[in-house]
């Protein structure tokens, strides 16, 4: 039964991923006084990309062709091992936060190698930038999650979510709140959003994430776009569920609980996507050479979260 719930949790995220991206784009368009494309457009984009011809340069090796599959595999694995709609369904080792961090890094390494393999200038530049940012984001990532682990008493994300859901909101979440703020910083950086990267840029010189996708077309582009949508949905769903641990699907499960859990996840994702669009519309993108300020601030906020968690433990 818990196995079934864990599978269900991953499948819901996989299904909702393009919808989340569509919702973020719609909300951003509304902030800019545009009407915006319909929410379901990303599904259609992915389908039409799947039907298009794939152009592969003859100067590339097998890495170029294989990279989208590795990236997508990492994103799908994240969807299954990171708890979003359900809590208490995974064994502790499966959602260990170092495993989660490792799998996320695995995806970004293959993305960078795919970007470098076609030997285009921009792909190399994007890959170099992506790896620089990945090195910067890791301290904040692990420090923020360690603060949560201290609060929850376990290294498993599933266990942390279960712990927060078992307490009343006012007893659990405030102790973790500063760490959650740090995780918002990390989410923005991991998913190449403002102020780290501009997801809608058309100027190659400013690209980070998009620069690595420049050489891809057709089905492999669809795979990469879908992978980044899944990663965004996973991170948003995780942060939203950790800060609002209500209506989670938990083991003694009923039909009503199941429906409520799915609806609650959709509501949380919509809220998180709205907040993301708000951040993207009010912040400016930072210069690449000032990125270390952003990440050290994220790291320091995460350290402050660890401090708060320690203090609330001793009281």
């Amino acid at each position, binding site marked *: 039964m818990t196995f079934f719930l864990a599978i269900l949790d991953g499948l819901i995220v996989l299904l909702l991923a393009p919808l989340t991206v569509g919702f973020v784009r719609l909300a951003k368009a509304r902030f800019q006084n545009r009407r915006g494309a319909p929410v379901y457009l990303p599904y259609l984009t992915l389908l039409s990309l799947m039907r298009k011809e794939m152009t592969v340069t003859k100067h590339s090796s097998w890495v170029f062709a294989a990279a989208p599959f590795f990236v997508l595999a990492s994103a799908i694995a994240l969807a299954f091992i990171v708890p979003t709609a359900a809590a208490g369904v995974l064994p502790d080792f499966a959602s260990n936060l170092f495993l989660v961090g490792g799998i996320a890094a695995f995806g970004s390494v293959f993305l960078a190698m795919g970007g470098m393999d076609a030997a285009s200038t921009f792909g190399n530049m994007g890959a170099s930038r992506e790896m620089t940012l990945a090195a910067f984001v890791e301290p904040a990532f692990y420090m923020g999650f360690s603060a949560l682990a201290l609060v929850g008493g376990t290294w498993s994300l599933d266990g942390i979510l279960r712990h927060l859901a078992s307490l009343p909101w*006012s007893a659990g979440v405030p102790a973790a709140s500063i760490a959650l703020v740090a995780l918002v910083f990390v989410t923005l950086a991991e998913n190449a959003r403002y102020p780290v990267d501009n997801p809608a840029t058309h100027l190659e010189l400013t690209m980070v994430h998009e620069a690595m996708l420049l050489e891809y077309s057709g089905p492999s582009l669809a795979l990469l776009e879908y992978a980044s949508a899944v990663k965004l949905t996973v991170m948003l769903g995780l942060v939203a569920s950790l800060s609002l641990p209500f209506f989670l699907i938990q083991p003694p499960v009923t039909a009503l609980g199941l429906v409520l859990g799915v609806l609650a996840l959709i509501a949380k994702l919509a809220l998180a996507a709205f907040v993301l669009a708000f951040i993207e519309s009010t912040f400016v993108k930072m210069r690449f050479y000032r990125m270390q300020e952003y990440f050290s601030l994220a790291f*320091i906020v995460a350290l402050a979260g660890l*401090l708060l968690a320690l203090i609330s433990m001793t009281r």
Partner: protein
Amino acid sequence: MTPTVLSASLLGAMLVASLLMESRMRLTSLVTLFRVQSAFLGFYALLLAYAEGAIHLAVIALLILALKAFVIPEFLLRVARASGASERLEAYVRPTTLSFAGLLVVGLAFAATNLLLPDGHYFAAAVSLSLVMLGFLLLVSRKDMFGQGIGFLGMENGIFIFGLALTGGMPLLVELSALFDLLILFILVAALVRRAQHEHSSVGTDLLRTLTD
């Protein structure tokens, strides 16, 4: 949401705002953070007024909201714009170092309060001490009058929290005179900013040491 949880969240938000202020190097974003912090302080005072049924606290809360969240920041930004002062702020050390130092100071404040006050109003006292120390850090590390002034006001916010949480608010007259003192101080700072900008084309306090004729 019980009043205790709400007040603890407001205090926590003030602390985060103060910590973020350390690394802000642009005038508008520094002032905005200060505004947010003061608004939280006003709500905190309103909450205490509601919890204790004290009408004079509500008056003070509204005054804090009016003066610190609207009048002073607006005044400061307007003076900066009118005198043509630069939007960029300057500090003796880099913003990252500053926020790290801020974090250490907060840890120190919490540890000290932990030793001195074992129970009761522990969190409010710790936040108040942190705010005072963070404000002081801002005051000594910034080169320009805006950063120093905001640092001073941040210290003042910490002292207000201390007064509100631990003594249930000073008498109305004392609080009022403290607030109007602040207002006068800011009029003086504004005058000084205008003068310094006119004389040196900069609001850095370093330049005040040199003699001009």
